[in-house]
């Protein structure tokens, strides 16, 4: 398991290739890239700043990935989350999960993303034409994370 919090961009293809090289038994690679959108809550977004809680960030993501390992049969997982100043179309977050079978890879990847959104200590501040504003947490994100408690 690898967790990286960084200001630099990441290369999805290179990260997938690196995970795959590590294990010839991999049959399935599910991945997710989160991207800065140019609009939120109806306003044009010129950019954003991501703040985090160093130390707790890495710890909480490692806990999330460890939970995924308990629930699904996966080989490895990589999480990269950027912090600092980002602009529209920049990549924010990358999650890659490798497994023998696609069902486990998809489920673990989505689970990690849902928990990242609700448990990992990151905060976004958007620059809009109306000034800078902290992004409010979304109820739909809480619901997305909550549904994993009910599932097998």
């Amino acid at each position, binding site marked *: 398991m690898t967790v990286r919090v960084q200001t630099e961009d990441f290369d999805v293809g290179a990260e997938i290739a690196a995970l795959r090289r590590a294990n010839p038994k991999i049959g399935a690679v599910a991945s997710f890239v989160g991207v800065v959108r140019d609009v939120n809550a109806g306003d044009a977004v010129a950019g954003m700043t991501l*703040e985090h809680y160093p130390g707790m960030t890495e*710890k909480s993501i490692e806990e999330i990935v460890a939970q995924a390992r308990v629930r699904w049969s996966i080989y490895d997982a990589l999480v990269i989350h950027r912090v600092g100043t980002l602009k529209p179309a920049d990549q924010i*977050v990358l999650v890659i999960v490798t497994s023998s079978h696609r069902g486990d890879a998809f489920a673990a990847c989505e689970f990690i*993303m849902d928990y990242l959104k609700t448990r990992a200590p*990151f905060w*976004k501040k958007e620059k809009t034409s109306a000034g800078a504003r*902290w992004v409010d*947490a979304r109820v739909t994100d809480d619901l997305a994370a909550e549904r994993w408690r009910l599932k097998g």
Partner: protein
Amino acid sequence: MITVLYFARLREELGTGSERLALPRAVRDLEGLRAHLIARGGAWAEALGANKAVRAAVNQSIASGDVPISDGDEVAFFPPVTGG
């Protein structure tokens, strides 16, 4: 002494990102610490008030109000997270 950290909107509203604090004798748990900080009044009462969505962590784990606080702990207050 404990370390108290503030993040994001809270950090801005309080005008500080961290402080070292002698743990008051009356403060046993997270809820007690929050009440102690609110008692400072002004921005503290405003930002940490019961009507505000405030999350907290003790020693870098998400914690609820009844989690005990003791000397040497690192406590953090912050808004609901919005990463990803």
